[in-house]
């Protein structure tokens, strides 16, 4: 029966982690009204989480859009329908690539920073010190960071999409000489405000909540050692990536 024991504990461990993260989310949501009364704490974090990721997001978005333009052009050219290039670029970015790639980059850029920062606070007993001063570290440290992440994510996705479309436009129209008028008019007729744009924004919100929750959760419950913080940081990236991709499938199945 030994071979059954291993999967059993893996499943049990997974359940435990999921439950703990869910309870942690409830705790964060309960303190949200308190945190909203001190918006300066949140906006300071919007700077570190969102504004500092800006260059990374814009450069990646530009290249993703340019690759889409190039690949799409090559494929559509075989069917003599390069006029649809704009639709291809816009729909791929708005529905899938924008939210997903931004969330993955966000987990690597901001999520790891959050985890190691909070984990290090735990390891150097700063969190314990706050508790001694009757300051709830969840309320003072974790909730503003969580809210800042949830605010930043849709904004980052919007910037990623806009820059990505610009990249697709540059490659398609300027480099490959797709007709500019048909590029935009196809986008206008085929990209639906609700079906495509709104569901992309919903996705980005959900990914923002998931990736930020995983980051602060791993940081807050990191083992207070150098090794523990490093392991928690690794787990943040891995778990965020898996969570984002799995949620992406679920949301796509529900919304489209």
């Amino acid at each position, binding site marked *: 029966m030994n071979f059954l024991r291993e999967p059993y504990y893996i499943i049990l461990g997974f359940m435990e982690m999921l439950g703990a993260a869910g309870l942690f989310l409830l705790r964060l949501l309960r303190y949200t009204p308190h945190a909203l009364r001190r918006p300066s704490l949140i*906006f*300071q974090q*919007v*700077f570190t989480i*969102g*504004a500092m990721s*800006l260059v990374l997001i814009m450069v990646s978005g530009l290249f993703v859009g340019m690759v889409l333009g190039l690949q799409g052009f090559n494929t559509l050219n075989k069917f003599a329908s390069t006029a649809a290039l704009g639709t291809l670029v*816009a729909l791929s970015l*708005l529905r899938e690539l924008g939210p997903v790639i931004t969330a993955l980059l966000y987990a690597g850029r901001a999520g790891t920073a959050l985890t190691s920062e909070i984990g290090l606070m735990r390891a150097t007993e700063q969190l314990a010190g706050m508790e001694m001063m009757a300051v709830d570290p969840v309320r003072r440290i974790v909730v503003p960071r969580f809210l800042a992440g949830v*605010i*930043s994510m*849709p*904004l*980052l996705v*919007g*910037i990623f*999409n*806009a*820059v990505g*479309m610009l990249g697709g436009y540059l490659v398609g129209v300027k480099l490959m000489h797709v007709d500019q008028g048909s590029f935009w008019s196809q*986008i*206008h*007729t*085929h*990209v*639906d*405000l609700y079906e*495509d*744009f709104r569901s992309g*924004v919903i996705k980005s919100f959900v990914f923002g909540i998931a990736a930020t929750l995983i980051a602060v959760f791993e940081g807050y419950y990191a083992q207070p050692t150098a090794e523990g913080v490093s392991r928690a940081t690794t787990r943040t990236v891995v778990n965020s990536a898996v969570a984002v991709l799995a949620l992406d499938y679920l949301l796509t199945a529900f919304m489209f």
Partner: protein
Amino acid sequence: MKQTRTIEIVTGAFIILGIFSLYIIATSATNIGSYGDNKGYTVTASFNNIGGLKPRAAVTMAGVSIGRVTAINLDPKSFTAVVSMQIDGRYNDVPDDSTASILTAGLLGEQYIGIDAGGSSTSLKDGAKIQYTQDSLVLEKLIQQFFSKATAPGGK
């Protein structure tokens, strides 16, 4: 103090940039224009076969978009497709003996409704029904007809 000001300015710029790009995408890269004003009037038309017509398809007159298809239902008695379309209030002078036909943009493009003006002096009112309709061309039926004519005895 100076450093916190820089941080605040950069954060503000980031938020404005994010909202601005979402706004730009929503307004200039989607079909937001077709959601605009809902003023206008609704007319219906029955078709034997609508082919691949979908809700939100365009309604055009002489190639100019004048409205949208709002709903497509099946009449349970006559088994014809009842297409409801909303026509922009600016075009309230469409003759009531106009013909609605289902057309295709290009060879494999989207289907839309084209209205050919009739000669009547009374115009379509809200809730009116367009009497004269022309179904969509179904490629398979067309090919079938072509072959049955070619192989029929006495055919040319």
